[in-house]
């Protein structure tokens, strides 16, 4: 099976390549004459313009079919995620450690909380209404200005000792730190049937002989009032702010790392998804040194 492969020398190859780039006999560059290049380019321009057009049309149609207020599906959002402030992440998840006697170790944590609660100041909440019903705040019509729906106020001062107003250090200085627990927003999500969902923080690795974690919750009982639900989406409730619960940990042992989990207890909030550590609960490591 010979004669199929002729070895070409390097100079021959170069020469062939040069000839390919510019062939003076036929006036071809890269295998085509200039006019051919223009034609083929025009064809491709036209082809891609048409394809872009079709794509744009498809996306446009898609956007037209979408409901501006509610997503079509919430397959992944069966149960809300839970986040914690301050949020300092270590190698695996939230990992918060500070030294009580060294305020440099916790000033950043405190600042995080202050910044976070800035969104709950009276000025930022002034567009929202006061709610006291403790029941679901259903709104079938767009009663608020600009064709929106009302959102309930959540003020930082509702967190009392953990509002940063009475104690600007959020208890970090005395080793009884405040942690703010936030539930993710899900459009039209109702957490439970009648009772308000409640945050509950415990030691994750609770030993029998240890004392259980003592927590002071704000608002009292650590409840998320039902009148913050349901959430009608960004377009309907542009000023909506998530309700918060602050947990002031009172008896964190010093100089040891403890694992704490804060769960949301509600009928429709699950916290047993093995894949998702932030669904319905938040776990964090805490080390307070003295």
């Amino acid at each position, binding site marked *: 099976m010979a004669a*199929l492969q002729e070895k070409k020398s390097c100079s021959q190859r170069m020469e062939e390549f040069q000839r390919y780039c510019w062939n003076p006999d036929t006036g071809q560059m890269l295998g085509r004459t200039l006019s051919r290049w223009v034609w083929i380019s025009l064809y491709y321009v036209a082809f891609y313009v048409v394809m872009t057009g079709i794509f744009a049309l*498809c996306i446009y149609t*898609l956007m037209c079919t979408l409901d501006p207020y509610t*997503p079509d599906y919430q397959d*992944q959002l069966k149960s809300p*995620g839970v986040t914690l402030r301050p949020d300092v992440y270590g*190698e695996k998840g939230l990992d918060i450690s500070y030294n009580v006697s060294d305020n440099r170790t916790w000033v950043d944590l405190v600042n995080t909380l202050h910044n976070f609660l800035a969104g709950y100041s009276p000025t930022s909440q002034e567009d929202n209404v006061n709610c006291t019903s403790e029941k679901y705040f259903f709104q079938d019509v767009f009663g608020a200005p600009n064709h929106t729906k009302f959102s309930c106020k959540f003020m930082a001062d509702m967190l009392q000792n953990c509002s940063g107003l009475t104690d600007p250090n959020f208890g970090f200085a005395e080793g009884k730190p405040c942690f703010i627990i936030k539930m993710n927003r899900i459009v039209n999500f109702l957490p439970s049937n009648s009772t308000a969902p409640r945050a509950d923080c415990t030691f994750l690795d609770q030993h029998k002989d240890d004392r259980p974690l003592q927590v002071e919750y704000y608002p009292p009982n650590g409840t998320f009032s039902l009148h913050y639900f349901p*959430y009608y989406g960004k377009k309907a409730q542009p000023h909506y702010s998530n309700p918060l619960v602050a947990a002031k940990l009172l008896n964190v042992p010093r100089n040891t790392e403890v694992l704490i989990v804060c769960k949301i207890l509600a009928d429709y909030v699950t916290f047993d998804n093995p894949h998702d550590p932030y*669904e319905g609960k938040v776990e964090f490591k805490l080390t307070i040194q003295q």
Partner: protein
Amino acid sequence: MGKKTLEIYSVELSGTKDVEQTDKEDGKERYRGLKNCFHSKKDHHTEKLKKELDLDDHKLSIKELEKKYGTNIITGLSSTQAAELLAQNGPNALTPPKETPEIIKFLKQMVGGFSILLWIGAILCWIAYGIQYSMNKSSSLDDVYLGCVLALVVILTGIFAYYQEAKSTNIMSTFNKMIPQQAFVIRDSEKKTIPAEQLVVGDIVEIKGGDRVPADIRLLSAQGCKVDNSSLTGESEPQARSSEFTHDSLLETKNIAFYSTTCLEGTATGMVINTGDRTIIGQIASLASGVGNEKTPIAIEIEHFVHIVAGVAVSIGILFFIIAVSLKYQVLDAIIFLIGIIVANVPEGLLATVTVTLSLTAKRMAKKNCLVKNLEAVETLGSTSIICSDKTGTLTQNRMTVAHLWFDNQIFIADTSEDHSNQVFDQSSGTWASLSKIITLCNRAEFKPGQESVPIMKRIVVGDASETALLKFSEVILGDVMEIRKRNHKVAEIPFNSTNKFQLSIHKTDDPNDKRFLMVMKGAPERILEKCSTIMVNGQEQPLDKSTAEAFHTAYMELGGLGERVLGFCHLYLPADEFPETYTFDVDAINFPTSNLCFVGLLSMIDPPRSTVPDAVTKCRSAGIKVIMVTGDHPITAKAIAKSVGIISANSETVEDIAKRLHIAVEQVNKRDAKAAVVTGAELKDMSPEQLDELLTNYSEIVFARTSPQQKLIIVEGCQRQNAVVAVTGDGVNDSPALKKADIGIAMGIAGSDAAKNAADMVLLDDNFASIVTGVEEGRLIFDNLKKTIAYTLTKNIAELCPFLIYIIVGLPLPIGTITILFIDLGTDIIPSIALAYEKAESDIMNRKPRHKKKDRLVNEQLAIYSYLHIGLIQAVGGFVVYFTVYAQEGFKPNILINLRVEWEDSNVNDLEDSYGQQWTWYQRKYLEWTGYTAFFVGIMVQQIADLIIRKTRRNSIFQQGLFRNKVIWVGIASQIIIALILSYGLGSITALNFTMLRPQYWFVAVPYAILIWVYDEVRKLFIRLYPGSWWEKNMYY
């Protein structure tokens, strides 16, 4: 004299390149006979050793021989001597052709083709993990898994390819079969039987009829010894052997018997002069293995294709690596992108698919009597542009058959078809009665008993070829010949011999009233005529006058001119008074008259062409394949057969024909007028390579006659110099170099020797030329279908690649994962791409020229561009539409996705907001991302169905081709859908595979794009058909 012969039979140890050089230096030298060009890779260029063969053994006297080999012809060697020599020279066996060790073959599969790219990908994965690990002990193992999957893919496809190759090569028979088992040897003055492998030079051996010659032997004495040298020289006539030195040439002298030839009759004693690889046949065998096995055309095409794809993969990979780095991505991320791009670009399953496709075709060809040894040869046959075919057995039926009769001054045509059924000539004449009697009686051939149920033409006959022909001819016409012979009892007989040139027998007749003996005679017509004084016309004896003699000569010349073997027949009723019933005939003293006989008729025989061959030759011609006949036969016979099968077409003439027609000298004829040429081996010997080239280019119809098997190699090389892909048929051992040298060597399954089968790429099980043509058809079809398969497979690469590019540049969440891509390449796409191998030809593929091996590439620019930039792009767009649909309906509208990548992938962001203000944890997003993968996967799969359908044809509309003719395509489509369903709904819960259960409606989002692909391709084909040769066809036809 000695010196000259030495030069001719010298053996060169050099590479083929040196041989080609010597060719140019002294072109003529090469054609002078057997010149063995040994190929030894070690000594490639530098060492050019000239080693002498022991050539003069046939010239030496017995005394000199005894001295030379230290032996004694009476006592033989002593056992100790023999043991020493055995230790020194090794056993008397041919070294089997060197086989590549299995492990090397296996490793080759592991690193060949795309494997190396995937290995790089896998290693990069592990390196990436290593770096990640060193920075962050808890980094995820995803990269390790991906690396393992890639490595697994390479290993699995490697094992598969290796298995396929091993399966196809196990047909290989080895030389071992040719070795005679036992030899009868004189050692220590005793006759012993020893295994032939233990023979050494100087042994005295005895051979008898039926034995295989155990080594190269110089005969010391012989009694009626005849050998069959066909395995060596291709000549099938038995050759007499004696102890006399008759020819300078070792090959032609009568006192040498060659290793592996068969002794047909008689006995002989001889001295072993060469053993094992040093025998003539051993040298030819090693010559055959020395002719390098170059790459097949399809291997070159696949390599070309791999280069293109690898080039695209690597250059896009590096380009985007640079882009990623300059976009301030981390180098580690950039490496991950690089892996993704490589995986997306490499069609992992394709090489395995090609192997399967080829072996499917090989199976199909085996059903049509073409056994393919080397899978890639399947396609080579399709690109064949010249077939150098044997005559005997391949083009012809390989049996002498009565073709013409001449009696009563008239030529009659006999039926020569395979079954002889239709003998229509006039059988009423009295002359025929006499002639048929002679044919029946003057014949020594007999049917082997116990074949009554076998058709006459298939019965086995003991006797030579002509007598067999006559026997069968008379059996067909007259019925039970044996019974007729019994009734006409034979009383005396003189068998045919070359000095008499006739055969005679005397019989009692079956007529009870006629007490005369009948003497019947047949032989060379001119000798028979000499013995006759009368001639029978219409059953009456007439004196043989000048005009009847003239008529005889005209008929004789005419039949001879047809290339037929002519025999004359005559008879004589011996007068009862001189030869009474009790008369004893003495065949040695010849006490009976052998002249003044009565001439009865002529009968001519030929080995007729197979009935399917003319058709096949016509097919070859319309397919642009040149058929060259190469035969050892006489030029006239060769030309006659060539004409009757159409190798020389009816209206074309050779130079000699023109000269004869115009009554001018051959030299005066304008050579351009002749289309056909008949070239004899002797003429070929005197040709320079340039002259041969000229001959091959100028004549479209060429017959080489009286050629030696060695010259076949020269012819093949000449054809290859014309840039032709050459197929060569052969059966003898001496054909094996030519078979190896040819682009595709075709050995005869029935007549072929093991060596020929070993050297060939393909074995014709029925020895029929027509099977080659069906093979060509299959080969061409597979080339077209491979093109379709590759086009199909390449298309989706763009749809797999674009997500990565968009991901890097625009920062969308990754639309399709690397593992998912592997599931397309090795999952849904495998069966459909094999299904394309079952596609029927679009038009008559036998009506176009063979592909030009340099211009008509398997993967050409048009194919790549159309697949990548047209259909591939549509697929990518379709995939993105599905992707965006899924994300938008779950809450992430396209605008928010842009540049979301960093936050999206940050596992510490667990409240990422979507377009509706909802907040997502990392895992919730990840799950959506996998849904996106699944959606994109389904999008590609749906569009690949359309791609599969459009790839059925390249020019014709799908509706012309028929949507449902290829059922396997539908199996392929079904498999695609089922695999996708299983992946999504069955394995959707296994997180490692990154598949999720997709909402049913998303399966249909890409359907409009699938329809668009179909419509676009139909439009493309329509314009190609409407405007052939236009700009459109040049750019869009692949």
